[in-house]
Every structure is written in C-alpha cells, then in structure tokens.
C-alpha cells in the first residue's frame, strides 16, 4: 500500500523545498525537451508548400501520408528487427557480464576495475568506433584474411561489413554497457546470504539463477531494456554507416525527409515513433514495477 499524501497534510515549507529540489531538472527539461517536442508536435499538423515553407494550421495530411505509405510498415519492421536482435544479444551478454562481476569476482577492487574496463570503448567517439570495424570486418579485414588463410572460405565474406549483421554487431558493441550497468546495479543489491540460503535449501546453480538472481534483477533488466530499445529505435547513424546505406530505419527515413525539406511528414513520423516508444516503455513498466523494485 502506498501511503497517500494529500497536499493538505504536507506543510507548505516542505512543499517549497520539494519544488526547489526539482527546479534544476525542470530548468533543463522544459527548454530542451518539452519545448522542442511541442514544436515538432505543432509542425506535424502544419501544411507545407513542399519547399520548406510551413503554413500554420491544423491538418492531418502528414499523418495520413505517413500511415498510408507502405514504406512506413517496412521501416518499422526493419527497425524492430534491429531492436529485437540487439536487445537479445545485449541482454544475454549484459546479464552474464554483470553476473560474473557480482557473483564470481570476490575481490571488490577487481570487480570495479573490470567494470571500468567495460567502459573503455566509450573513451573514444562513436564515429571512430564504427570506423574501427572496417579493418576488422571489411573485405580485406582481419576476419576475412584469417578465414581465407585457414582455408575455411575461398571468397571473402561480403556479409560482414555494410550489412544488417554489421549493424547489429555495432549496436551490441555500443549498447551492451547500457545493459550491464543497471543489471549490475540490481544484482549487486542481492544479499549474498540469499544465495547461501538457496544453496542450503539444495538449489543448483541453475535454480539459483532461475529462481533468485533473474527475478531479483528484473528491475535492472527492465531499465537496460528501456535504454537499449529507445536508443536503437531512435538511431539512424549506426544503421546508415554500418549498412553502408543498404538498410534504413524509421529515423533514417525521416532524417531524409528533413533533408528534402518535408518538415511536416518528418514531424509526423517523429510523433508516431515517440508514441510507439512510449507504448513499449509503458508496457515494460507495467510488467516490472521499477519504482517499487528500486526503493525496495
């Protein structure tokens, strides 16, 4: 049961203090988040002359256009494919890395050291990281050369770079840390005595993972999922670079729209994507009560 707090019960001074605490966040969010969203929302209802000029008004034409386009569905399917694949791999890798760090590294200093190691890829820019894939995955890249040298293949594998596979590899590489951190955080809060109690009851390693660790890491998994899903669905850069222009995503499509001055359709697509994401996130929040889990 949540204790109900009505404003009448809270003294005004405490109320003021509460507002002061959230003020910095409000000062950042309103001009840099709320306002742009409102602008996009407004733009999605405007009419356009097709050359970048907007006519203030209210028309659903852009939405109709976006929703009627066969491309939209294709783009969403493509994006969802990347999202699901990335999610699965980051979840598996992230879960086991966090599990290893929390339950198998006894030395806390070492655990923190290894944890920091996970962040090393982030010491350089995203662009550099993606360029770095070329010498590895490229036609003349290390992997192809090695496979050729070993005689496993006769022709270099084209699928390694500038393909959907490359897109997923880049996403997983980039986003696994967003899984590791929240899962690590919720796992670290599992009392080691619980594991011992489970062993005492006769639980196997697998039982412990299935019945204790996974359910108790739910909030971390949910948070990580939200990070990964929203980043992948909102990205166009990785798709563009790693697929070599061969694949598109929802965002890359309306980025093109912006490029050709189709602002209202771009805005309508953006609003649509936002709604889809909000739906996904609230679905996740519905399955896992993150708030309750975090304050537990």
């Amino acid at each position, binding site marked *: 049961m949540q204790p109900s707090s009505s404003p009448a019960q809270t003294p005004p001074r405490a109320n003021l203090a509460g507002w002061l605490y959230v003020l910095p966040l409000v000062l950042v969010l309103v001009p840099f988040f709320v306002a742009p969203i409102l602008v996009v929302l407004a733009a999605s209802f405007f009419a356009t002359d097709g050359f970048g000029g907007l006519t203030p008004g209210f028309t659903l034409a852009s939405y109709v256009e976006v929703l009627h386009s066969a491309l939209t569905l294709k783009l969403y399917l493509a994006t969802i494919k990347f999202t699901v694949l990335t999610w699965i791999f980051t979840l598996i890798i992230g879960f086991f890395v966090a599990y290893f760090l929390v339950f198998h590294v006894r030395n806390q200093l070492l655990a923190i050291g290894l944890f920091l190691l996970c962040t090393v890829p982030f010491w350089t820019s995203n662009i550099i990281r993606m360029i770095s894939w070329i010498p590895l995955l490229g036609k003349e890249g290390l992997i192809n050369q090695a496979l050729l040298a070993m005689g496993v293949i006769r022709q270099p594998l084209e699928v390694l770079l500038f393909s959907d596979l490359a897109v997923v590899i880049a996403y997983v590489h980039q986003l696994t840390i967003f899984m590791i951190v929240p899962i690590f955080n919720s796992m670290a809060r599992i009392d080691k*005595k619980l594991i*011992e*109690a*489970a*062993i*005492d*009851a006769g*639980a196997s390693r697998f039982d412990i993972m299935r*019945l204790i660790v996974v*359910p108790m890491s739910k909030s971390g998994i949910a948070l990580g999922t939200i990070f990964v899903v929203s980043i992948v669905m909102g990205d166009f850069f990785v798709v563009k670079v790693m697929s070599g222009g061969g694949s598109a995503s929802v965002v890359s499509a309306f980025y093109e729209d912006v490029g050709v001055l189709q602002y209202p359709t771009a805005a309508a697509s953006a609003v649509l994507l936002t709604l889809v994401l909000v739906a996904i996130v609230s679905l996740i929040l519905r399955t896992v009560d993150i708030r309750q889990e975090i304050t537990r």
Partner: protein
Amino acid sequence: MKSDRGDIELAGVCKSFDGATYVVDGVNLKIADGAYCCFIGPSGCGKTTILRMIAGHEDPTAGEIVIGGQNVVGLAPVQRRTAMMFQSYALFPHLTVRENIAFALRVRGMSKADRLRAADAMIEKVRLTQFADRLPAQLSGGQQQRVALARAAITEPRVLLLDEPLSALDEQLRVQMRQELRRMQQELGITFIHVTHTQLEAIALADLVVVMEQGKIKQAGAARDVYAHPHDRYVAEFMGGQNVLSGRVEKVNGASFTLAQAAPDGIEVPLQAHSTVSVGDKVDIAVRRDDVALVRPGKDLPPGCTTSLPSRVRAIEYQGYFVKVMLDTVPDDEFVAYVPEKTFFADPFTVGDVVMATWATGSALPLA
C-alpha cells in the same frame, strides 16, 4: 545407509581464512542427538564459523565433522541433511511466505501440489496461515523469524543450525520467540545448534552450553554447570552473575585455603577435589553475586560465613525482584551483590555506606 541420527562430533576442527591466524583452533566437541546446543562467545570468537562449517557453507582447514556417524566434510548441505536459519533470516524478498517455505521442496523437484500442501502444513505449525500469501517485507520481525524457521525445518533436516536467530528482535519478542524455538525443537525432535552472544538466551534454552573464546572452547556443559561452576575467570566473567577475585594463597589448611586479601583474615576458600594449591600461588575465585550478603559493620555475620570484606557502596540499581548493589570491595574489579528486594528494603543502604560483604564459605569457588 543414511543415518537419521543428528548427533555431531567435532574432532580437531580448525579454520583459517588467511593461513596465518586460526578463527577456529582445534575444537573437539560431542553433541548428542536431539540436543539443544548453544555456542556462546563474543563476536569474532569463531562460533559462527563453526556453525557454518557444520552447515557446509565453509570447509574446515583441518579436522573432522561427523554427523550421525558419517564424516560430512566436503559434502553439500543437502547431503548432510542440515538446514540453516540465517542471521537476519535471508528470506527471499520476491517470494511469498508460502513460496519461501516451499523453496527447498521446489528445488528438490517436488510437484507443485505436493510442495504447497507440505508448506501449508508447516505454515500452520508456525501459526502463519493468515500470512501465507504475503511477502517477507510485509511481516513483522517475529513473523519473519517464524518463516525462516519453517523454511529451514521443511526439509526434515537432522540438524538445524541457527545463527543468532533472535538478535534482530526486540527484548519482549526475543523472550517469546525463545520459547517458540524450544517448543519447535521438542516438536521436531532434532538437534538444534544455536549461536548467540546473549548469556540469558543460552542458559534459558540449551541442554549444552559451549563457551568460546578466540577459536577455542573454554567450557562446555549443561547450562547450570557453566553458570554455577565456571572453569575459569573468562567463563565466570562472560556468563555473568559471578564476582571474580584474585589473590595469593596465604596458607593451606586441609580442606580449604586462605587467599590473601584486603580483608582482615583473608578469604577462606574450600579446596575442590583433585585440586592442589600451594602457598604463594596466584588464584582466582568466584563468588556468586546472589550469594553475597551485606551486613552493617559491627553486626554478626550470618552463620557459615567466615570471610567479610569491608566495602563502600558505589551505586545501587533497582532491578525489580532484586537490588543490584555495586561495591568497591576489590580495587579495579567489579564486585556486586544481588540483594533480594525485601531484604534490601528492610534496611536499605545508600551510596557511600560502609558495609561488610560476606558469603557462606562453601560457596566460594576456586577457578582454574
């Protein structure tokens, strides 16, 4: 053949975590099947480590742990048929009371219907039926403790190990749960090993009290033996209720010897059988606090008392059925008399009064 007996024998059990210092240092002990055994000692004395070694959560560096005639070193807790109740309970926070209790049966592969039925029977035993569907966080400390007990007992272990089971409870509940532990132990008829640092808890519950210090057993015996006949100064002071005095032997005369003290005639102490002391030895003796009588100077000593120590009253604490009178009898050491309430108030002392502390000569106990 698997034995159902829960008698335990520790033989030369040692444990070192760093290879240099021994947390448990050569412990030998026999615990009878179905006994209630309390390990007691200050924190860091190795009592919890012994418990964890019996449970199988820690391996001894040396020595054997024999349960029901079988050396269990290296076996998993399940194979030992022990169950542990953890300090602060370690209940699974995401599982309900029923699921917590059924957990061990679940991982043993019992069918859902069977295990829930068994869990419900156990829930009834610990009187938690109306809380079966709650999460641990929604229970009070005493209820959580009962869940922990039920969770440990459901596998019908032959030994139940309890690590400071009452330390998380407040005073009143502690006394109540203490009785419940004893009741459960008798009902289940299995060996309980209970680790505590509270003397009262140990002597109230245990058939066998084991007093430990720095990895070694100082004394093991029935509660009354340990309390009334401590072996040495450490046990006497740790178990409480005793005044410990030390001094040099002045003369030995047959069945007793005299300890040089501030008292005019020294302290007369009866000699225990088989013990020898010679003049000049430094000896510790214990006198129970409730054996000490206080007499105003000049008055006759009660019969049987040959020793009287002049003292000044330092402080007085009312304790209900007795009054705790603290005296400055021995320099640097506590000397306390527990005077029955009615006796005290018939002729009450005040702080600063001079009194003679005396006791029946036979009740002084020489310590090792």
